[in-house]
């Protein structure tokens, strides 16, 4: 223990040294002023000390088998509580009545959270199930949002008329991106998708004549309800219920796919591409289906997102956005539906309510990605493959 503390002190000292020029000093050479912010150094040191203690402790646990977390520690799938009918009933009742009780502000936050759940589920198909690391996922989100915005702006299409088009275009975008990258290995694929995402965003930003450039497209309508005029308050509630439907659909589809022939092909591809191909799996088709279906969901919620804000601009679809969605998948657990929901709550809802953390949000996201990879690469909720029952087969 004493040794550990000494070691952590050394590490703390090292980090304080590293941080000194950026964290403590603030120079303005034009004004000729140097500010020393010693308090920052102290706080950094304190954080580093405790983090390094924990880090080293968990690292040693990770190595020694007998000190590991129990295998099913976080396996919420198995939890009786979550599966029990009364719990599910009460949970859905509360969830459904939330917008009626809460002020509009909170409803709107929940809508954002559900948009992220669907995005997470979509990316989960590509990254979690099929094992294709996609760093440009926000591009499909953008395609969805801009399809709706442009259709509305130029042709006066409403939300419902645009939605299928937005979804199809995003899906098409996914497949078209998929075709050239079929042969690429994991890390090259990551870079190409990142490049693709940035190209889409740069085009949106620079093609001013068509996309209105960085200023974006305003005045987008909310989804219609059989021609009934809704005020701002009730249209938000309406959107809330629509997104619940959308999210449930995404969960259902993902679940069904994941335990079907298609899902098995995805996972087989993730586990071993050569073996998968040798077992008769058409890798081209399988990869393209993953890209297409993943992008499809991004397209759908892209339209929802644009409609919710009544506005789109390129700054909503940066690499940042892709990184947030990826960290949802990574934190939740690759391939796990419950994981995505849980991770969205942690990564999207929590920062909304812990406002003092707002400026640290991305810092924490980055740290989470590293920490998860080091300590629990399978994510919070470990995805379990379906169990089959053979009693009636024997």
């Amino acid at each position: 223990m004493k040794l550990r503390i000494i070691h952590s002190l050394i590490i703390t000292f090292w980090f304080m040294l590293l941080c000194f020029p950026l964290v403590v000093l603030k120079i303005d050479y034009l004004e000729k002023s140097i500010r020393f912010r010693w308090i920052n150094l102290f706080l950094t040191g304190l954080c580093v000390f405790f983090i390094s203690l924990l880090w080293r402790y968990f690292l040693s646990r990770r190595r020694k088998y007998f000190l590991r977390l129990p295998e099913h520690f976080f396996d919420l799938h198995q939890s009786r509580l979550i599966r029990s009918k009364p719990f599910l009933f009460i949970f859905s009742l509360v969830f459904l009545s939330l917008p009626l009780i809460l002020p509009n502000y909170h409803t709107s936050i929940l809508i954002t959270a559900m948009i992220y759940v669907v995005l997470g589920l979509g990316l989960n198909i590509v990254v979690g199930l099929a094992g294709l690391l996609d760093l440009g996922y926000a591009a499909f989100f953008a395609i969805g949002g801009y399809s709706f915005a442009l259709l509305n702006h130029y042709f006066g299409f409403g939300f419902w008329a645009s939605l299928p088009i937005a979804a199809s275009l995003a899906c098409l975008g996914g497949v078209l991106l998929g075709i050239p990258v079929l042969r690429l290995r994991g890390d090259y694929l990551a870079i190409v998708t990142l490049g693709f995402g940035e190209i889409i965003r740069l085009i949106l930003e620079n093609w001013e004549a068509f996309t209105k450039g960085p200023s974006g497209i305003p005045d987008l309508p909310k989804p219609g309800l059989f021609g009934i005029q809704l005020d701002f308050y009730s249209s938000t509630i309406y959107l809330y219920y629509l997104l619940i439907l959308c999210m449930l659909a995404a969960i259902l589809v993902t679940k069904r796919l994941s335990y079907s022939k298609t899902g098995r092909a995805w996972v087989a591809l993730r586990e071993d591409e050569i073996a998968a191909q040798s077992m008769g799996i058409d890798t081209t088709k399988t990869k393209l289906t993953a890209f297409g279906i993943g992008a499809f969901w991004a397209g759908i919620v892209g339209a929802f997102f644009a409609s919710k804000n009544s506005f789109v601009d390129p700054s909503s679809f940066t690499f940042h956005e892709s990184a947030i969605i990826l960290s949802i998948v990574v934190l939740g657990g690759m391939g796990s539906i419950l994981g995505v929901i849980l991770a969205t709550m942690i990564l999207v809802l929590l920062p909304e309510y812990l406002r003092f953390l707002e400026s640290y949000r991305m810092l924490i996201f980055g740290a989470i990605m590293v920490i998860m990879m080091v300590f629990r690469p399978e994510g919070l909720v470990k995805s379990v493959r379906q169990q089959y029952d053979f009693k009636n087969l024997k």
Partner: protein
Amino acid sequence: MTNHPVLSVHKISMRFGGLNALNKVSLQVFPREIAALIGPNGAGKTTFFNCVTGIYKPSGGYIELNGPDLRPKRINGLKPNLITRSGLARTFQNIRLFENMSVLENVMVGCHCRTTSNFLNAIIQTSSFKKEEQGVIEKSYELLKLVGLQGSANLSAKNLPYAEQRSLEIARALATEPRLLLLDEPAAGMNPQETTKLDQLIMKIRERFNLAVLLIEHDMKLVMRISDKVFVMAQGEKIAEGTPGEIQNNPRVIKAYLGEEVDVVS
């Protein structure tokens, strides 16, 4: 035996840079035949398998697979998954299971190329999809019973002991309904009891599915016990072919093996 071979390979060659990994190798495997491919390390046996199964594209020669209609079909240049669909399945020397899938699912993946439903059927859960899915489960479970793994069906494949992983690879390959099964060192790392079980399994598979087997193996006892025909390769070329008895007395084979410790049974 009929005159029509299941697999006939005509003078295939494979070059890696300046290295001739395979040099005009020809061989034929007939229905219901158990053939063995032997040779010292580096003779090009696995490269040969990889060429036949489409993982490598041979730089010369051609490969024909005879369909049930006895019409030969050229398979060189096809993608591995299409070759598997034409009736050729394989296992790997260094086991390549889908580790994080369950044992049963590994076999179910093998059924992939014999089913027709697509992802839309799965989303809507059509009755034909459900029926097909149920069929796949039953068929896979049967295969697991055949190789004796029915008790571990729901385990993760990576949690199986080594010898069982090899059996699972065989079950997975059988699920593709091959007419020719290629086994790449199926007995590697097995103890004598496990090896005996393995050769019973291979015989059983031939009887049950009426298929031909081509195996690469270093365990000469196993090869001599079960094979009808033996091909010998050395340095990328086929140097001999014949019954186990003929091979044992072939001077070229003995020469190729000189200096290597192999217990050729007399």
